[in-house]
């Protein structure tokens, strides 16, 4: 099946489209449920009231980054700079509010916009020159990392004012405590899931990922669309930056150093194809939760962190294998 015919199929048959979009997440969801069942049986604490909320709270930062990463990977791109961009946004928000001193809400807005600017720059370089996304974002990773360390002078910023830490606070929900930030993350996931599956913009993103050339021929303004996706991803990283400072309660220049790879891990585990055009943002949520549940569950069992890394590695390879095999099937 060529990319063009697959496009026609999608446009004409919404049911087929939905099946195509949701199928890749079925495997990961099964994995998540099985893992949760296993940890529920093997530890007493896993099923306890606050534990799921704890996992949610632990994955909210990488989860939010992974939303932006999903958008970019759907266009057949990749973003290695997301963790570094978030770290810059985080330190910017913290420093502007504490030492600026700016009103905290203004500091937050500027931090999010700065991340958006990084995304915009990535998108422009990818399209205007054009350069491979891998190279552009690898360069941007170093630029953002260096700017973070220069701007912060390697100092951790403490004493954050209330609006910056608000999203890290908890409110009681039944027998557990939920952080406000987890709600923001879930809202973002639902919002982008809707935008990708039910708007023209979402369909264009998939079309672009399947074949940039066919998308262009069918009248999609691919340059504008790509730049927009990178810029939106940047803004999402800015929200992740706010979640990060609110969760840890400090501005940390060392933050986010492995989060680029962790976000790609989540996207891949969620069944999104690294070759673009296939996958869902809700799959990514499942992918993020798989990593979080394994880390939490193995720690509750007293298994050391090396095994957590081992399990994550095996799962990633497996997820890509499944993606490849099922791709072969559809050709």
């Amino acid at each position, binding site marked *: 099946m060529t990319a063009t015919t697959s496009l026609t199929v999608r446009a004409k048959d919404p049911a087929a489209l939905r099946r195509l979009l949701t199928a890749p997440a079925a495997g990961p969801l099964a*994995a998540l449920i099985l893992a949760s069942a296993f940890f529920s049986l*093997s530890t007493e604490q896993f099923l306890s009231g606050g534990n799921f909320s704890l996992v949610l709270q632990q994955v909210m*930062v990488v989860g939010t980054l992974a939303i932006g990463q999903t958008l970019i990977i759907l266009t057949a791109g990749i973003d290695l700079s997301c963790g570094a961009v978030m770290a810059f946004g985080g330190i910017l928000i913290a420093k502007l509010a504490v030492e600026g001193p700016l009103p905290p809400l203004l500091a937050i807005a500027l931090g999010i916009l700065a991340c958006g600017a990084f995304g915009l720059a990535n998108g422009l370089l990818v399209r205007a020159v054009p350069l491979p996304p891998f190279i552009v974002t690898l360069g941007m990773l170093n630029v953002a990392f260096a700017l973070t360390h220069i701007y912060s002078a390697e100092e951790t910023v403490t004493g954050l004012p209330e609006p910056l830490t608000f999203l890290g606070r908890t409110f009681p929900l039944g027998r557990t405590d939920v952080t406000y930030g987890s709600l923001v993350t879930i809202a973002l996931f639902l919002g982008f899931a809707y935008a990708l599956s039910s708007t023209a913009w979402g369909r264009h993103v998939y079309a672009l990922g399947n074949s940039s050339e066919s998308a262009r021929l069918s009248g999609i303004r691919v340059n504008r669309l790509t730049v927009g996706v990178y810029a939106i991803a940047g803004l999402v990283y800015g929200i992740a930056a706010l979640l*990060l400072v609110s969760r840890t309660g400090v501005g940390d220049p060392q933050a986010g*150093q492995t989060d680029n790879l962790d976000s790609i891990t989540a996207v891949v585990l969620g069944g999104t194809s690294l070759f673009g055009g296939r996958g869902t943002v809700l799959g990514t949520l499942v992918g993020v939760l798989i990593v979080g549940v394994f880390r939490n569950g*193995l*720690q509750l069992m007293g298994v050391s962190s090396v095994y957590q890394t081992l399990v994550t590695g095996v799962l990633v390879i*497996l997820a890509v294998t499944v993606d490849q*095999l099922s791709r072969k099937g559809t050709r």
Partner: protein
Amino acid sequence: MSRRDRPVLAVGAVVLALSLTACGSGSGGSQSGGKVKVGLITKTDTNPYFVKVRQGAEQAAKASNVELSTAAGKFDGDNTSQVTALENMVASGVKGVLITPNDSKAIVPAIEKARAKGVMVIALDTPPEPQSAVDALFATDNVKAGELIGAYAKAAMGGKPAKIATLDLAPGVSVGVQRHKGFTEGFGVAADDPSIACSQDTGGDQAKGQTAMENCLQKAPDINLVYAINEPAALGAYTAIKAKGREKDVMIVAIDGGCTGVQAVKDGKIAATSQQYPLKMAADGVKAIANFAKSGDKASGYTDTGVQLITDKPQAGSESKDSGFGRENCWG
């Protein structure tokens, strides 16, 4: 079997397989029932120093009949992973946690949350800022470790004018700052003394230590004394110095006392090192938590876990032990 089912089944099968291996490799989580749980969070999993910390904790856990669970950051400076591990340990019902903070300031809110839930937190090796954020600190006196090799170097130079290279850790990391300060004080020079010809950061890494020393020798070819934050950095420096054929007239002093480092002292590559005792640090920490579980008495304040000058060329006025003693008490 339809094509759509296949990935689901494959993933399911592997998860089950993994779950079984995880079961086999674990320390038998659910069977331990009423045992007191102790957590240990180190900076990284790979640094031999922290491997020794973990071994010390494991031995003490066995002796005190408590259950130990361990975790670590992914890289030096990784605060987020440590916060997550601390939360998970508190959720698993630990009585106390031993932690070597990757970021002295950034870890504080997470420690406070854990302590608010009644968990005793002891910092190992590196104090948080402020130190009062933890119940107790078990650590080497890093300033003293620096002073010992500084004073030794002063004596060994025997009045010869010194041209010094300092191979430091990283900006703003307290261990590195304290050792450097101790060295200059022990040697008797001001921080900005012109005899310090070159200062470079190495991250405590051998390859970076070598590069740093190469650059220092380029800048000031007449360097005759090298202070290194640890022995890997010192050995990197030795490689650079040897490449210039100057290993006979450049003295290297270091801090840490790892087994490779002590061997380098024996081989004459490093003149002296200050040895610290991570095994004792961790063992004392585990015992303190076991004691807290039994008696309800919390450990408090700072416990100096000791530091010892190791050299095979002793100098008058510097109390030292030889590399044989160092070998018996080394880590890594």
